[in-house]
């Protein structure tokens, strides 16, 4: 069984390396667009669980995804053991911040608490969360190195900044999140960051500069690999995750989902790239298939709206006002300059007398976005557009009733074009000209 797993693993490795190594090259300057680096083979870690990882302070680290190499060598395995890091990671507080100089190889990096809201606790990796005397409350200015675990409670957020700031990295830990910082160092000119997320959500942004960044967030069943990216989000809870890149995000996010056998060994890995504005969940569907599950739920509180909000809502739903023809200056609240437009053939169109600035109220309602009528109910019973028309009519007074041409509004002579008619070149009539009405009968249809 183990031999079969090993063979399967090797086959997957060769296939992945061959497929991803074609056409990719690492970018060397920040000005060049970020290109994808071949993904390193997935090693068998004996079960990618948070508990296993957090107890490896002195044992060599079996990484799930290897650090990215500048040379693009897909088979290189250069995972540095954690025992080169200090066994007691520094947890200093209130010390002066380091200057933003690029870190030398092997020099440790720290996350500094730039801002804190609520309560967050920190302890060395390996400390059980129920051993509360060993947990310390986090304060602004604290420095967090590799080998610490964080617990952010409800109604709390923590914003961390990487120091030395090369590459510039900011990370936000959202409420009710538990994670550990597994690795944080500079190796061969690459800033390596490994975060293990037990539950909760992380948002991060990394600006690629002269220093490359190898940023991985690992959860028990999935891994997020950054590809020159800013403001990506990784949320994980009990085997379910969501990785997304903000709508203005840069670069790519690679989502890797693992499949385990009964022994807890990784037997398969599925990968998908996420570009800006997209997200992927544990179902690993394509971005376009996820769109149908991404929806905004509007909450309209009509009682709590202010006057300005109501007016804005009215605007967005249509005012049941027909603007003067061929005139886009929609200043209908009092502009004296609004007149009728110009005919298509160059002649002057007959103008309608403006009402308080030029708007002509009609009871036509929304232009395709109204609620419409309910069958069996009289017009206007539930018709919001009709109610708006009546409201506007009451605002604008008697004049529009005479011009609306609808029954019950005073009416106009039929030989005068109605103001709510759409004017077309073939449909133009002069005042007093009778309208030609076509009547169809069976005989004409046969023709």
């Amino acid at each position, binding site marked *: 069984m183990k031999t079969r797993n090993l063979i399967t693993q090797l086959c997957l490795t060769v296939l992945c390396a061959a497929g991803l190594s074609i056409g990719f090259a690492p970018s060397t300057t920040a000005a060049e667009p970020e290109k994808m680096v071949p993904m390193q083979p997935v090693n068998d870690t004996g079960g990618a669980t948070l508990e296993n990882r957090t107890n490896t302070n002195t044992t060599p680290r079996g990484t799930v995804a290897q650090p990215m190499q500048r040379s693009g060598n897909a088979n290189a395995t250069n995972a540095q053991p954690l025992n080169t890091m200090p066994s007691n990671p520094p947890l200093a507080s209130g010390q002066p911040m380091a200057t933003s100089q690029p870190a030398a190889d092997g020099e440790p990096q720290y996350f500094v608490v730039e801002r804190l809201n609520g309560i967050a606790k920190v302890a060395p990796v390996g400390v059980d969360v129920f051993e509360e005397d060993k947990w310390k409350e986090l304060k602004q200015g604290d420095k967090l190195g590799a080998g610490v675990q964080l617990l952010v409670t409800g109604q709390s957020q923590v914003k961390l900044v990487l120091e030395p700031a090369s590459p510039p990295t900011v990370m*936000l830990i959202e409420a009710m999140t538990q994670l550990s910082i597994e690795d944080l160092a500079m190796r061969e000119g690459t800033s390596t960051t490994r975060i293990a997320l037990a539950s909760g959500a992380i948002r991060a942004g990394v600006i690629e500069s002269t220093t490359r960044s190898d940023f991985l967030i690992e959860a028990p069943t999935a891994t997020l690999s950054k590809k020159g990216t800013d403001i990506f989000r990784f949320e994980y809870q009990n085997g379910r995750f969501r990785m997304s890149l903000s709508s203005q995000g840069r670069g790519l996010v690679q989502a890797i989902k693992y499949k385990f056998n009964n022994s807890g060994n990784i037997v398969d890995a599925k990968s998908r790239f996420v570009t800006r504005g997209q997200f992927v969940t544990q179902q690993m569907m394509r971005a376009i298939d996820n769109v149908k599950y991404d929806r905004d739920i509007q909450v309209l509180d009509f009682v709590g709206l202010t006057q300005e909000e109501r007016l804005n809502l009215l605007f967005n739903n249509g005012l049941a006002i027909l603007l003067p023809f061929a005139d886009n200056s929609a200043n209908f609240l009092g502009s004296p300059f609004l007149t009728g437009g110009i005919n298509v053939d160059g002649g002057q169109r007959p103008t309608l007398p403006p009402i308080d600035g030029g708007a002509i109220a009609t009871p036509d309602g929304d232009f395709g976005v109204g609620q419409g009528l309910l069958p069996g109910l009289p017009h206007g019973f539930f018709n919001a557009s009709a109610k708006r028309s009546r409201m506007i009519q009451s605002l604008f007074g008697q004049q529009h009733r005479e011009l609306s041409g609808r029954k019950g509004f005073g009416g106009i002579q039929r030989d005068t074009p109605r103001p709510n008619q759409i004017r077309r070149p073939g449909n133009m009539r002069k005042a007093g000209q009778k309208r030609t009405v076509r009547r169809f009968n069976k005989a004409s249809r046969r023709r």
Partner: protein
Amino acid sequence: MRSPSFLIFGMLLATAGLTGCSAPRPSETALSGVDPDTLSDSAFQVYLNRVPLVTVGEAYRAMLILADGKDGRDSFEARRQELESRDIVRSAWDLQPDNVIDTASVSYMVCKICEMPGGINQVLFGSWGLGDRRSAMRELMFRGMIDDSFEYEYVTGSGLFALMRNADAYMKKKGLYESDVDLSDETDRDNTGELIVPNASGENG
């Protein structure tokens, strides 16, 4: 004519269905070696994430943590009175502290804390108690905060933890508690769209 065994089976099934949600939590579904009453609020949240099933007492404490950020009470009665005074819990439910809590009751509490008005059913009927919990559960399902489930389904610890996190995010977005810590396109990008990475000293870099 149905056999007596069938009738007895049907009666037992009906009884189980009616009383299923009010059963105490089985010992094998509790977290061994941990007494939640001795835990701090932060440790209690991690405990919730691990416990297989959640009792009414634990859910009441979780809801107070969700609403206020902290518990501040040391007994079930004090929590119950606080929640009932805010109308987050209804006294008519008569939930017992050691029983397992159901999805609908938790949904109602979350809706109240997050000030979700709900739909027309919630307004017309739920306001006086008819289907209030079910309407609240449907509201949360509509918003994608919980998975599709039944009203009487037991609440798991991780499920409640995930719901609390979603509710917390909703409350932050709605402004129900103040927080100036954020990382988003709206707050952390300059005019050219570049990410603003602050210095650790607090100045923007």
